[in-house]
């Protein structure tokens, strides 16, 4: 018995030692600082020449997508038409998309439906490569501001094609507020203490920055995603002051819906999807874009640097930018298509669908939306004194923690 226990211990210690040695060896073999932080310079894949024509399909296509972005109603016809079998992996967050693409995903996946807050991380990480938009007929009909937006186009190179977008609107209860608020100030107003809800997402700091850019011009904020330390601190401060008013930082759209449904909150930052769902349930709410404008998200189908099925990927870009798929996607998810020629199709899918998601809005409306992009150390003006995204995450923990 005694001998047995001793030997068990010996085996255990030996095994643990071997594992530790193996892991130390593994760590040592990875070159320190494999990815460089200093200086953004040009995107690593900028020099890669995109194809001038689309060759025969490779028979399959691997996508990283938001849930709801690879629905059978447009994937099945695509597979039938092109012979490209679609395999979709759903990601839960922008960072998950970046990690999946970075950790060798580029050899496995062809495309990713990244949002603006992840795009620059993918581009400067060398995970995606330039796309020839001439091969994508739908691109010509995009809203002008989505043809070469700064979040997916660098130095005239397109790293993907825009897909769908939406604003972050101000949602309010029409029982409490008889007319539409004209300013985001209601979210910072002590009259609504404990009756406010905003998304639980670090990028929400940009909403405070956008508000400050109009209400406190002395800070000199021109872009809510490019903030110097002083500007950033002011935005974080504003959110700290807002905190006592917050009922809940919502994580799921369904939480905000139920908060409004049972009257726990009366104002909040939301997506048009929540407004439409609540109005369909006969809850007395409405949404508006206040005079300071709004932040918004815009998704891009981006092409992986080492995409194993590039021809199927181009066929996918052609397919999903057609008015029909654009309309189907917009109605099924609750967002606005990049293609401007979809109004009639959207109305056919859902009465009033075009107006509900602002697909026919004038350019002036879209100009009020500041689309999400990754906050980087490098500001747009060539200086590199802006607050990077990692600090946004830390500040967000401070605000909500």
């Amino acid at each position, binding site marked *: 018995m005694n*001998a047995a226990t001793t030997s068990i211990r010996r085996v*255990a210690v030996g095994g643990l030692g071997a594992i530790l040695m193996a892991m130390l060896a593994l*760590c040592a073999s990875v070159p320190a600082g494999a990815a460089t*932080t200093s200086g953004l310079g040009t995107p690593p894949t900028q020099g890669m020449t995109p194809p001038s024509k689309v060759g025969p399909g490779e028979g399959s296509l691997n996508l990283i997508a938001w849930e709801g972005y690879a629905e059978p109603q447009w994937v099945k016809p695509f597979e039938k038409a092109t012979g490209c079998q679609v395999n979709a992996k759903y990601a839960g967050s922008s960072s998950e998309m*970046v990690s999946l693409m*970075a950790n060798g995903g580029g050899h496995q996946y062809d495309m990713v439906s990244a949002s603006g807050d992840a795009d620059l991380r993918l581009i400067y*990480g060398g995970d995606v490569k330039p796309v020839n938009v001439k091969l994508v007929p739908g691109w010509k009909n995009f809203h002008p501001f989505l043809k070469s937006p700064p979040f997916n186009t660098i130095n005239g190179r397109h790293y993907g094609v825009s897909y769908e977008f939406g604003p972050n609107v101000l949602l309010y209860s029409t029982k409490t507020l008889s007319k539409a608020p004209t300013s985001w100030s209601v979210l910072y107003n002590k009259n609504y203490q404990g009756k406010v809800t905003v998304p639980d997402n670090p990028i929400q700091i940009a909403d405070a920055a956008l508000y400050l850019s109009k209400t406190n011009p002395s800070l000199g904020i021109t872009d809510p995603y490019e903030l110097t330390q002083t500007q950033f601190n002011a935005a974080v401060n504003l959110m700290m002051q807002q905190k006592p008013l917050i009922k809940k930082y919502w994580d799921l759209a369904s939480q905000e819906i139920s908060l409004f449904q049972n009257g*726990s909150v009366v104002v909040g930052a939301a997506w048009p999807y929540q407004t439409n769902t609540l109005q369909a349930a006969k809850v007395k709410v409405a949404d508006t874009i206040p005079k300071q404008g709004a932040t918004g998200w815009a998704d891009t189908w981006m092409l992986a640097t080492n995409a194993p099925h590039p021809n199927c990927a181009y066929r996918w870009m052609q397919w999903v930018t057609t008015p029909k798929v654009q309309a189907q996607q917009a109605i099924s998810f609750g967002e606005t298509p990049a293609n401007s020629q979809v109004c009639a199709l959207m109305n056919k899918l859902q009465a009033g669908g075009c107006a509900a998601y602002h697909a026919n809005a004038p350019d002036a409306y879209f100009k009020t939306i500041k689309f999400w992009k990754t906050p980087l150390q490098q500001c747009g003006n060539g200086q590199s004194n802006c607050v990077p995204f990692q600090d946004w995450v830390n500040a967000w*923990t401070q605000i909500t*923690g």
Partner: protein
Amino acid sequence: MGIRTSAALWRRPWLRATLTLSPPLAWFLLIYLASLVVMLITAFFTVNPLTNQIEHTWTLSNFSQIFTSTYITIIVRTLVMAILVTITDAVIAFPFAFFMARVASPRVRQALFVAVLLPLWASYMARVYAWVVILSDKGMLVWTLNHLGLGSPHVAYSNTAMWIVFSYIWLPFMVIPVYGALERIPESYLQASADLGARGWRTFRRVVLPLALPGVVAGSIFTFSLTLGDFITPLLIGGANSSFIGNTIYNNVGVGGNLPFAAALAMVPIVIMAVYLLIARALGAFKAM
């Protein structure tokens, strides 16, 4: 050949033990301990803020960041909640388990057992959502209080709501070990205590309570550790001041992509649990399990 092998094994008990135990031990080491060690090592790295790639340069900055007021607040909140829930569950579970073990008839005892264990059959999410419905501003609780003229407090989306939900969800994990400890107290001890002149209360205080304490401590290991590691309840029913260690870890991995800091923060509950288990062992909890 076969005989020689078995003879060799018979002569060398250490070889026999090694061969028998190697597969499960290797599994345990590789899957469980190795992943913990990898996590510990990751905690000393940093992440490239732009590309989300882990950079293999050794640093202690993740650990020093934990000791800033933001994270201390979150850690203390989690810890205090775990302690509160444990005490609440102990207070509720003790009389219940006592009734089950020493008072109820076998048939009633069986029914109570089913009542305690039945909620565990339902999904965790379903049970938390049930409480969201009960506690919300137009829910049953507020409605009842309102009609009793006791005002209409806002309970949902607060730390009070979390405390109620946690106490409810982990209650069975306290009842069962306490019941086990109480059931094992021999009837003769109580009779002896009575024969020596102790009344009910004194017997309870001097005989029952000390003998049942290891059961309470064993149950507290469950309620404490389950609360300490949770992040779903704060997400669903917590308010603006309800982040737990688990939520912060989740945010750093899922939203921030900062695995090294998440790993460093994950060390905190491990350390807390290690200390807790040492105290529990000193109180004899492992004998009651």
